[in-house]
């Protein structure tokens, strides 16, 4: 016998550092894979409202994954293993969720089954741990739970407007995913394992599409502004009629249409998050932010166009050419081309000039949008610089390869434009003719500040404009 004091208090359940880190690591793996899956299904989703919501939730999942990963490392989890040894059951669970047959089923599965299960798992941890000893985890999980619940509520509210029977129609799929999750012991791993359900087990692994479709409310369009397509002479003339109203007006409309169509950049980055599976964690964290930012910019444009009271799907082209032209390229080449575009815009001082013109138009909302867009783009160029150097090597050979990839990509895009030059979907004049009349009926007078409006777009590929 030995002598001791009685225990000062009863411990909460049997959470210790080692099993806490194991529990949270499983959650990290689910969040990481969920983030990548949301990114991919964002690309594949055409319906605008669902699309932008998936992008936001993808970014939030990246923040959740990052917070969990940081905490896991604080809990003595080996640094060398945190991004290895992913629990195969958790990978398989999210891979099953990815197999939703279309966007609606995917959304039903994630928001009707996986996210509620994640919330229960986080709550289960909170119920077991000690709020003083493990206070940093408690803080993180309370915030993640609040985010997840908000995600579920937002998507359900959106579905009510856009696809009212979405969750009822996908009930069977949701139940399959619930059974699958339970069969692997739950996300916590604390449940009793059981045989995997078989009702949908035959589905093939999800693969991301190499081309995007646009929301069916829009007429199919390849391009969105005249600088993309040198062959569309009528489209350029129609745009010049808008410019003739006032170059400030043209800038207001140009920036809104351009912003709205930035979704292609979000798609390129999101697809990279799916295509690259073994990069350092910060690669995904940065690209998640990049993709969500571009979706925000797109939403800024949509908001501005709606703010003028316009029927956006009827009046505004939503192009697919930029993403689809890049579809066959290797992922690194798509990233290289996007970096080339964004870097070129900033080096030309384009954003600074655009803000001055929008200020001259006294369009405070568009100024604010462009100003925050500019700050975001500076971050994106830094991401592109950092990660392309990582992928290609921080050497002269790496720089040369970046140049080669970029030049080749520009040629591919130019060839795509030439190939589609006679396609009716490449013609922008009908849009700008309609838009001209709508704009002309809304113009108002403001004092002339005598700004010498001198602006030209940095073209997506200058080769496209060469005669």
């Amino acid at each position, binding site marked *: 016998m030995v002598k001791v004091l009685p225990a000062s208090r009863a411990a909460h359940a049997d959470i210790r550092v080692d099993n806490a880190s194991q529990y949270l690591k499983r959650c990290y793996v689910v969040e990481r894979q969920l983030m990548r899956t949301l990114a991919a299904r964002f690309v594949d989703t055409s319906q605008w409202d669902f699309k932008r919501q998936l992008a936001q939730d993808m970014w939030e999942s990246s923040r959740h994954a990052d917070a969990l990963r940081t905490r896991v490392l604080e809990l003595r989890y080996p640094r060398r293993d945190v991004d290895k040894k992913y629990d195969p059951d958790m990978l398989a669970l999210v891979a099953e969720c990815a197999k939703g047959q279309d966007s609606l089923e995917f959304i039903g599965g994630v928001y009707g089954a996986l996210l509620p299960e994640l919330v229960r798992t986080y709550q289960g941890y909170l119920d077991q741990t000690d709020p003083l000893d493990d206070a940093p985890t408690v803080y993180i999980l309370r915030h993640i739970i609040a985010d997840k619940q908000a995600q579920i509520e937002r998507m359900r509210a959106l579905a009510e407007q856009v696809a009212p029977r979405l969750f009822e129609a996908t009930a069977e799929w949701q139940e399959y995913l619930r059974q699958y999750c339970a069969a692997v012991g739950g996300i916590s791993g604390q449940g009793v394992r059981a045989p995997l359900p078989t009702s949908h087990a035959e589905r093939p692994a999800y693969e991301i599409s190499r081309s995007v479709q646009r929301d069916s409310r829009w007429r199919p369009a390849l391009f969105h502004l005249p600088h993309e397509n040198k062959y569309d002479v009528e489209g350029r003339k129609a745009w010049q009629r808008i410019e003739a109203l006032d170059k400030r007006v043209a800038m207001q409309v140009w920036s809104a249409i351009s912003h709205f169509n930035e979704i292609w950049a979000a798609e390129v980055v999101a697809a990279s998050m799916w295509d690259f599976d073994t990069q350092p964690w910060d690669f995904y964290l940065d690209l998640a932010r990049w993709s969500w930012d571009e979706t925000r910019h797109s939403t800024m444009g949509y908001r501005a166009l709606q703010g003028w009271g316009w029927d956006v799907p009827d009046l505004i082209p939503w192009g697919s050419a930029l993403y689809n032209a890049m579809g066959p390229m290797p992922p690194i080449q798509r990233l290289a081309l996007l970096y080339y575009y964004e870097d070129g815009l900033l*080096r030309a001082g384009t*954003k*600074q000039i655009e803000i001055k013109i929008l200020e001259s138009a006294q369009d405070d909302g568009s100024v604010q949008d462009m100003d925050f867009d500019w700050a975001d783009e500076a971050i994106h160029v830094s991401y592109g610089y950092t990660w392309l150097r990582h992928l290609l090597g921080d050497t002269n050979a790496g720089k040369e390869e970046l140049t080669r990839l970029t030049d080749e990509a520009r040629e591919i895009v130019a060839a795509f434009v030439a190939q589609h030059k006679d396609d009716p979907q490449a013609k922008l004049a009908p849009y700008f003719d309609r838009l001209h009349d709508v704009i002309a009926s809304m113009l108002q007078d403001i004092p002339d500040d005598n700004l010498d409006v001198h602006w030209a777009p940095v073209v997506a590929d200058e080769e496209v404009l060469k005669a």
Partner: protein
Amino acid sequence: VGQFTVRLAKSSAQFVVESGETILEAAERAGVLLAFSCRGGTCRSCLTRVLSGCAEHDPEYADELNIDAGELADHYRLLCSALACSDIELER
């Protein structure tokens, strides 16, 4: 150490940079438009070649800038983070 003059080769614009002031800050004070974005040496919008004279990056955070050794050797500088140490001419 006092003021130095910065000359832009392409536009022939000139402005004065004070001691301790970055070249970008001096350009803004003088109303000269130079492309920039982040002000932190990471976006590279202001990357510019120094054709003559001396400009060095702020030593406090020179290691954190997105510019490589080859570019430095070729006299490129990030104007948002560069201090003049003589009169200079920039390839702008």
